[in-house]
């Protein structure tokens, strides 16, 4: 009798934990997942309104980086479409024109992407995986390969 009761308690407790975790995970997934789009995907999707958190990635277009005090504006491109981006803060060490970048933030009312975070974590080829995939999807991968490293 006793071991059976104990097992019942443990199973009950385990189910409770599992249930709580499932509920937590489901609510967290609803609000906290950040989708990644390439500039082309962003241009095609009309349903993404201002204020929705997302990531976009591509290359920092050459000659578009403009600094004004602590605010930087630049254009992210997959060589088919572009997105203008503004960011206030210190750029990551690996941020450079012509190189891959991933920015997190949301669209402003004017269609300008307001970045809260600029990620330039690179693998040894200096190209974030998402950016490489976005470039392959836009059919511009070869051009990007030739871009100066």
């Amino acid at each position, binding site marked *: 009798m006793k071991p059976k009761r104990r097992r019942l308690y*443990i199973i009950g407790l385990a189910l409770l934990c*599992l249930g*709580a975790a499932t509920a937590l995970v489901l609510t*967290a997934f609803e609000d906290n997942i*950040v*989708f990644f789009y390439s500039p082309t995907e962003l241009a095609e999707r009309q349903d993404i309104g201002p204020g929705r958190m997302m990531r976009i990635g591509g290359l920092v277009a050459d000659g578009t980086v403009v600094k004004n*005090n602590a605010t930087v504006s630049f254009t992210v491109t997959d060589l088919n479409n572009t997105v203008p981006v503004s960011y206030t803060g*210190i750029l990551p060490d690996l941020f450079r024109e012509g190189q891959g970048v991933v920015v997190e933030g949301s669209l402003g009312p004017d269609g300008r992407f307001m970045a809260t975070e600029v990620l330039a*974590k690179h693998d040894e080829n200096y190209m974030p995986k998402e950016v490489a*995939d976005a470039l392959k999807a836009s059919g511009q991968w070869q051009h990007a390969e030739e871009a100066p490293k």
Partner: protein
Amino acid sequence: MIPELGNFALALALIVSFVMTGAGLAGAQMGNAAWMVAARPAAIALFGLSSIAFAALTWAFVVSDFSVSNVAANSHSLKPMLYKVSGVWGNHEGSMLLWVLMLSLFGAAVAVLGDNLPPGLRARVLGVQGGIAFGFLLFILLTSNPFDRLDPAPLDGQGLNPLLQDPGLAFHPPMLYLGYVGLSVTFCFAIAALIEGKVDAAWARWVRPWTLAAWSSLTLGIALGSWWAYYELGWGGWWFWDPVENASFMPWLAATALLHSAIVVEKRDALKTWTVLLAIIAFSFSLLGTFLVRSGVLTSVHAFATDPARGLYILLFLLAVIGGSLTLFAIRAPAMKSGGLFAPVSREGALVLNNLLLSTALATVLLGTLYPLFLEVVSGDKVSVGPPFFNATFVPLMIPLIIAMAAGPLMGWKRGDLAGVLSRLKVAGIAVGIAIAVTWWAQSDGPPLALLGIGLAAWLFVGTLIEFAERTRLFRVPLSNSLRRAAGLPRSAWGLLLGHAGVAILVAGVTGSSAWTVEKIQAMAIGEAIDVAGYSFTLDAVTEGQGPNYQYRRAAFTVRHDGKVYDVLEPEKRFFPVERNETTEAAIRSTFLGDLYAVIGDETPQGTWVTRIYFNPLVPWIWAGCLIMVAGGLVSLSDRRLRIGAPQRKRATPSPAPAPAE
């Protein structure tokens, strides 16, 4: 010549590990004493051969032998000696070699220190250990040989990622690996126990020191990595829920659960199958961590390699080890008798709760880490799961865990008295009230959840002290008497005190740094001052200069507090010409209540400088808490019960092990 020697040693090691597996497992199965004995020298020889290979690679790095392609790709003649040496494991091939070296070290340790192990169990443990080494050595030789030559040899190397050119690289990966690989010993014991069909208190006493050692190294390794990220990345944060961080955190959660459930096996002879399962899970997560990091499926600075062949091999290896051990578990576990009855409210019950909550937390972290991979495979959508997800899932699970952590140690074995425990925790309740009141008085503008965090920390800290005070009968008998009692307590009691108190301090630090961080980003002209958290930072100068293999730009901030000069902070931005890369070196001044943290950025067109200044409250408490936890683990490790020679099986174990009951 020396690299060839290393290569040859690796090939020999592969053969030796094969012999070790065969001799250990088959010998124990057939009861062949000579074979079983042979597993021991094999383990020691494996360690010797791995050391030779590792020394050969280190030599190639130290003398900058660029005909070795690994050295050419990851080193440079101008690199300071510290980074030449630590660069040995700052790349994929070398880090795998380090993994094998640690693995063989543990194998040799079992062989040398395992005199009192029953011969059958020892042979099986060594056999499984040899099998894991075989898998990794084959992986190195087939896909990631660190001794591959380049012809013609380049004049100089390509250098090492500057982010890795930091003393952190010298300590973080070895400590982490020590933890990862330490769990392999526990895993081997679990597999051996499954084969023998026997788990008893003596088994738990052999397993516990290995778990403790692995857990302590893992804790220290993760803390070091976090500290490194904190000062090197210049983002002011210390934990980002990055997939690679999670990869090391998941085995830690499993090891923590294992550490506690092994106590129940040892003391009460209960939870045996669960403990064996946890040992398998903990090591599986170590392997999964390696797979996630090394295969490059997750983009990260840690992804040294993105070679599909390697990923495929590790995946197959992972399937073989995890699938095989879980299958063995499914076949053999039902045959194990469970012992020790206990009521739901008891010390055992509290430890079960600990295990359930830690496992659930582990599951949420796993889900958050793998969900982006899963979704990309299924739907092609790319998502990232960041800190908000983990804050919403992991943190709520920790709240009941911490509440129970204070009460558990006060409960009796078998049947606890919850009302009695709660009345003994009255003082802790009062401490919670005081801590919340003081926090609210000091920082009324923070999020309300922060008050909860500080309250929990106070609850756990004081609750842990109460437990210790009761053991030493503090305030009930004269102080000298209490001190004598404290000195006479088993080391594991000290381990509990330090471990739990460390967690309490850690919780306070985590709460403070996530609730009340002050961050200011601005463009500053020379001579301009800015106020952050009651400190005034004046940008006095920006100078440039030359380091050993980099150029730097250094800012000097004079920090004033109450009008008096408090300190000068000098953050740097370094440019490494060989790698054409920059790094940020934050300047940090720690105070009791928090860190002053300054970062210098680029020059603006207006001739001012972008600066980022933080006040990170209670961050030093995080490091202190982790160190105290590690100290707890080490003190507990020195407990006399766990000392070599202490554990003895009551009955002599006949070898070979009795045939498994089907």
